[in-house]
């Protein structure tokens, strides 16, 4: 029962990544002719911080805004409002040089290693591509770096000569990880990195990611729907529902003693791999409402077993309760 190693922040007090009041709205055309538009509040004023060398787990059901959050952090979408600060600097207002530096420092590994690797490139070229674009290394130095990276993720050096189709799913995900690490990033966004893999392979990849974090001190933003895997990997967990963070705190605290009714329902629905475990049947009724017309007040109130009259009118803010932040009128 030893929690993963925590590293002290280099510039004392400055988190690696600090997101404050981050908001992303997408306009959606409606009506027969598409003349009227409404807004989807995909991410609505969320805040969190990520310390160097740690993992933040982001969980929630489809449509809750996890992937939009990761796209905002990767710079693939521009926020509507709010700030993303990386090592203290606001990412949105960076100049070209700062932006290049940021892109090198933040990398990603996606869910499907069959889609994220170019089938016509040799593995060596795939892993070397970030080096070609971003560094001045010559051919020999690049080859040495590629060999080093392949070794780091547990692939033989001859893998560089092969094509992606010659590898199984788990090995392909290792290639994707090697590519993400090529520029020695400080943050890697892991968007469902093991969901596409076979059960017996998932543990290998999760172990590899943990080991790499320990050796390289890299931070992870870990997005997954497998709650036990998130709890295993993360130092901090943030739970999202319809674009809002409803609970955020220490991974063990959130996973083992969830406070928000939605978190409780979510963790109860994540069936334990245990025949004798307590069967806490807190089934939430209904489905996730459309983000086009989120409920008033607390967005979870129509499905909440503890809903009170003022939940429908007043939106709860994140407040400290039981060592973590919870957005619920119960606390």
């Amino acid at each position: 029962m030893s929690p993963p190693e925590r590293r002290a922040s280099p510039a004392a007090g400055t988190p690696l990544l600090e997101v404050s009041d981050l908001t992303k709205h997408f306009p959606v055309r409606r009506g027969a002719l598409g003349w009227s538009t409404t807004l989807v509040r995909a991410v609505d004023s969320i805040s969190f911080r990520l310390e160097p060398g740690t993992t933040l787990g982001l969980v929630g059901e489809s449509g809750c805004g996890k992937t939009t959050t990761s796209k905002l952090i990767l710079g693939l979408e521009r926020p509507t409002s709010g700030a993303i600060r990386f090592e203290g600097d606001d990412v949105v207002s960076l100049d070209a040089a700062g932006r290049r530096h940021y892109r090198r420092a933040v990398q990603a590994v996606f869910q499907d290693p069959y889609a994220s690797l170019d089938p016509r490139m040799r593995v060596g070229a795939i892993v070397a591509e970030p080096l070609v674009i971003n560094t001045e290394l010559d051919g020999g130095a690049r080859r040495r770096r590629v060999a080093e990276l392949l070794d780091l993720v547990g692939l033989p050096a001859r893998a560089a000569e092969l094509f992606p189709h010659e590898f199984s799913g788990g090995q392909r995900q290792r290639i994707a990880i090697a590519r993400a690490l090529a520029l020695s990033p400080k943050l890697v966004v892991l968007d469902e990195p093991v969901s596409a893999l076979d059960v017996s392979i998932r543990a290998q990849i999760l172990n590899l990611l943990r080991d790499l974090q320990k050796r390289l001190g890299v931070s992870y933003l870990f997005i997954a729907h497998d709650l036990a895997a998130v709890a295993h990997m993360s130092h901090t967990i943030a739970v999202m529902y319809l674009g809002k963070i409803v609970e955020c705190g220490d991974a063990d605290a959130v996973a083992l003693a969830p406070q928000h009714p939605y978190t409780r329902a979510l963790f109860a629905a994540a069936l334990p791999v245990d025949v004798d475990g307590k069967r806490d049947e807190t089934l939430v009724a209904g489905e996730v409402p459309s983000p086009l017309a989120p409920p008033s007040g607390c967005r979870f109130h129509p499905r909440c077993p503890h809903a009170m009259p003022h939940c429908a009118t007043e939106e709860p803010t994140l407040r400290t309760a039981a060592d973590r932040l919870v957005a619920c009128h119960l606390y």
Partner: protein
Amino acid sequence: MAVPVIEVKDLHTHLVTRWGTVKAVDGVSFSVGESETLGLVGESGSGKSMTCLSIVRLVPRPAARIVSGEVLLDGEDLLARSEREMQRIRGRKVAMILQDPMSSLNPVFSVGMQVREPVAAYHGLRGRALGRRAAELLAAVKIPSPAARLRAFPHQLSGGMRQRVVGAMAIAAPPRLLIADEPTTSLDLTIQAQYLALLKELQERHRLAMIFVTHNLGIVARMCDRVAVMYAGRIVEMGPVRELFTAPAHPYTRALMESVPRLGARRELLTAIDGQPPDLAKLPPGCAFAPRCANVMERCRVEAPPEIAVSAGHATRCWLHVPA
């Protein structure tokens, strides 16, 4: 156990590919009784889905062929039926729920038309009685305002609702055997919990025998009475759920259980299974799991282990358990 509804005996299904003949299902035997759920667990390519397709004789032809074996539904061998007779059995006696509801629903027909079709075929209902029965079926799978939903098209429903519609069509007869092939994999967690509760309820009401294919051990622990673990086309271990979870006999089952992260049991590293899933076209002689097994012995690499009883109703294919 009561009289089995479905009994599969020594089923062999082969796939002819460019790389040679692949034994997708290699001597699988099991039975499922009324109101009983058998979990089929295994990785992709282990033969779970191919076993299910063999039962309803819908293996992809011409590549796949059921080579030998028996599939007894209430005592009659489905492999000996004609194609015409099979059409009357599929849906009426044996229903299936697949992973993606859109592969079972036709996007250009309304929900009502699709739910009415099996009802009309099985029960000969027409007109208003047919509409009423269709609405009852939607109500049985807990779809709110069923009468209005009958006019909806699949794309207007959420994933959970679509899977409920598929569930309604599956119990239209109601069948004797329900095969659920990863029915909740595409659903969100809270919706998955609702759907599993619904399946249990339908099973109890109609006393269905159920084969539940999944790779999620949490679902197995919740839903199944017995589990069969498949590896490379064979059942390597089968037994009551509790025994399999508390005292797994086969090294593969044990490794699977240990490799899954658990809530509340924080460990530095997970116990990973080495190596890659087997390539069915190039299986080693002997036990297929031997190259990845932690307890491998000389014998494992030469000779395939037979089925060995560990306790009553619990058997495994592993040389470790051969009586001395």
